[in-house]
């Protein structure tokens, strides 16, 4: 799939935004560099900060290719950052005690660059995944990057109505860390708890917005703690105690354990979230579904959106449309 349809689907929902932030993620964007981490950086001024970023990357591995992300002049978008992408191979011998040294090196680099190099913000760091985001209306951001020139097997898109950090490119969704990309509608009232929890595992929240913790939480729970995506969703939006009390013993023990171990990871407040990684996507809402989420299927394709109209724009011949219950994950896995 190229980016044409997702552009028109997101434009359907312009009234959900304010023209101050939109973004897209596409998995499978860089087949020729599929084995390299695609480190995306916003530079305030390339000549000021890039040397420091180059140096950090050089300390930890090899950059096999780099380029300014191609953009096309658009009168509605002021190019306040220069987007750049590196294709990077970390040197695993530099992180000897880790079970996943390459991911850990990249995570370390993201946290380090974002907290110590002024004027540089790493906004994506996964393999074979491209992120396009800026301040503007969805169709303008799409045209600015010409997303129709990219194609892939998973697309995420998001239209923002910012309240906390308007006009800041880093604040637009999707948020990405390693393979994880997140789009989020809502506000996380448990952010303070979640942030303190995730920061005690070495993550650093640098984007001034609540959504980034979701990417970090998935990275921790799934990659580092080995939970399945279903279990991770159950940790982030667990069943109520009243429901747990009615379960059979085995399930009750399981969900009690999840709530005890990961109580600080649980997310509160209204949200609908879609998280993608290289082999699939998962969509879910908060425990009382304070934000909409609708799904549709057609053939082997799964669509998840805030609005059915957006799905029908992409796929007029939908076979099934359904609305998941509060807290229930909807999972799409990549076919073999």
């Amino acid at each position, binding site marked *: 799939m190229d980016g044409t349809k997702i552009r028109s689907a997101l434009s359907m929902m312009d009234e959900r935004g304010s023209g101050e932030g939109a973004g897209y993620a596409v998995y499978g964007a860089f087949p020729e560099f599929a084995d390299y981490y695609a480190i995306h950086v916003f530079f305030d001024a390339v000549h000021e900060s890039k040397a420091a970023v180059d140096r950090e990357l050089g300390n930890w591995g090899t950059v096999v290719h780099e380029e300014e992300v191609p953009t096309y002049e658009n009168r509605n978008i002021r190019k306040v950052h220069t987007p750049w992408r590196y294709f990077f191979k970390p040197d695993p011998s530099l992180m000897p005690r880790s079970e996943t040294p390459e991911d850990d090196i990249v995570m370390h680099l993201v946290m380090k660059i974002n907290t110590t190099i002024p004027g540089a913000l790493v906004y994506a760091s996964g393999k074979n995944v491209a992120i396009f985001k800026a301040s503007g209306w969805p169709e303008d951001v799409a045209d600015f990057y010409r997303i129709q020139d990219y194609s892939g097997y998973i697309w995420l898109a998001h239209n923002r109505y910012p309240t906390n950090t308007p006009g800041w490119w880093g604040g637009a969704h999707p948020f990405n860390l390693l393979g994880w990309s997140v789009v989020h509608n809502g506000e996380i*009232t448990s952010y303070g*708890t979640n942030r303190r929890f995730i920061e005690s595992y070495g993550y650093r929240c640098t984007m001034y917005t609540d959504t980034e913790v979701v990417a970090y939480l998935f990275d921790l729970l799934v990659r580092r703690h*080995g939970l399945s995506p279903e279990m991770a969703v159950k940790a982030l939006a667990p069943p109520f*105690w009243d429901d747990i009390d009615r379960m059979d013993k085995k399930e009750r023990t*399981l969900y009690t*354990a999840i709530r005890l171990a990961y*109580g600080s990871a649980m*997310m509160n407040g209204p949200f609908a979230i879609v998280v993608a990684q290289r082999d699939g996507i998962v969509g879910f809402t908060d425990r009382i579904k304070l934000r909409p989420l609708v799904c549709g299927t057609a053939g082997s394709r799964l669509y998840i959106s805030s609005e059915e109209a957006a799905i029908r724009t992409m796929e007029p011949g939908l076979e099934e449309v359904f609305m998941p219950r509060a807290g229930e994950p909807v999972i799409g896995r990549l076919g073999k």
Partner: protein
Amino acid sequence: MTIGSVPVRFRITVDGSRCMLCGRCVENCPYDVFRKESDTIHVNSRKCVACHRCIAMCPRDAISIKERPVDYRSHPVWTEEARESIYNQARTGKIILAGMGNAKPYPVIFDSLVLDACQVTNPSIDPLREPMELRTYIGKKPGRLEFRDDGDCQSLVTTLAPNLELATPIMVGHMSYGAISLNAQKSIAMAVRESGTFMGTGEGGLHPSLYPFQDHVIVQVASGRFGVDINYLERGAAIEIKIGQGAKPGIGGHLPGEKVCEDVSSTRMIPVGSDAISPAPHHDIYSIEDLKQLVRSLKEATEWKKPVFVKIAAVHNSAAIAAGIARSSADAVVIDGFRGGTGAAPRVFRDHVGIPIEAAVASVDAKLRSQGIRNEVSIIASGGIRESADVAKVIALGADAVYIGTAALVAMGCRVCGTCYRGLCPWGIATQRPDLVARLDPEVASRNVANLIHAWTLELSELMGAAGINSIESLRGNRDRLRGYLLDESIMRVLDVKPVGA
């Protein structure tokens, strides 16, 4: 007559036009303030402690109490309290005793913290219409879960350590039988059982009449080891090792022999009439590794079925101590702030040693998180929790649950006169004198305490709902939902909260 009489603390007047000479004030005052002669009530104001029992019992509202009717000559440095203490010690040459908690006018940090509410960008949640979860588990939590892949699904490998399940994060702290009456303990026990929460025994043993409530009782092991045997340990829902107490950090306890009646003596396992003196340190704990041994011995004795708590007073390095406790196999650390009450403490300790609970909880939570061991222990905050807002704030600073002490006593009638150490509590709470104890009806008093816990729980639900939070876990450590109002920058850094407007 070198010093002479000092200005009377309270002046009592009985309005003759209202008084009907019923004599209830005479009967009710254990301090012998009132005397009835022919058709007049005579008053000795100097004996009054302002416990307000007479005021509560007077059917005609005839009694009034005025504080400091004749004041000391004012002076900004030589306060009345300073001078009075000097006169007192010049006469006696002794340590001054005091009851209740810290009575110095230090600023209360809780009162400079404000809570958050949701509007527009996210909805507040109505607890009357939506589920609101206050259930709290106290004990060790796994740092991560291990799963085994069973084909399609994952099954859990991790086993959970025993935890106490609380219906609300409000427990009643440790007040021993001896310090308070059996009726007071029974009232609390009935209330916590009804409220789905727990109470502490204090270091006074477990009286057989509390056995029916033992599933809601945390038994305490303190430095005197009073009342401790295997029966006691096995009956408790959890065991708490008391190292320190907020009202008197660094020193032990002292129950005067007059309070050690037959029943107290058998519950504490000490001779009748003997002073029960708990040493300052545990004589088998001279280092953190000794504490670990005691924690593990208690667990071994009870077959690792019960959570073990360790209670410390909030002092300058409580965060480091808590980090040590978290590594000792203990399941919870109780931090008792310097406003924590007591039956009797040297005034100089009560008023000058220790730090406020707000700062202690914030620093302990931050330290445990920075070391990645926050899940190893629950944090129970106590000492100066006066209302549901304090509960919400201290949980937002990082506590899992609170102990209340004084608040529960106030719910039973206590007027916070601070004279507990004399053993004459006219409300039947901090006394062992049978006629005074009989004044406290456990049926009534337990209802009051249960009402208080219920009311605070409702208020806590409403506060959480307004903040867009439907589970207590999401309030815990959520300091982003607090703001400091006219707190100085250094204390806001310790609390890790922003100022109002930021």
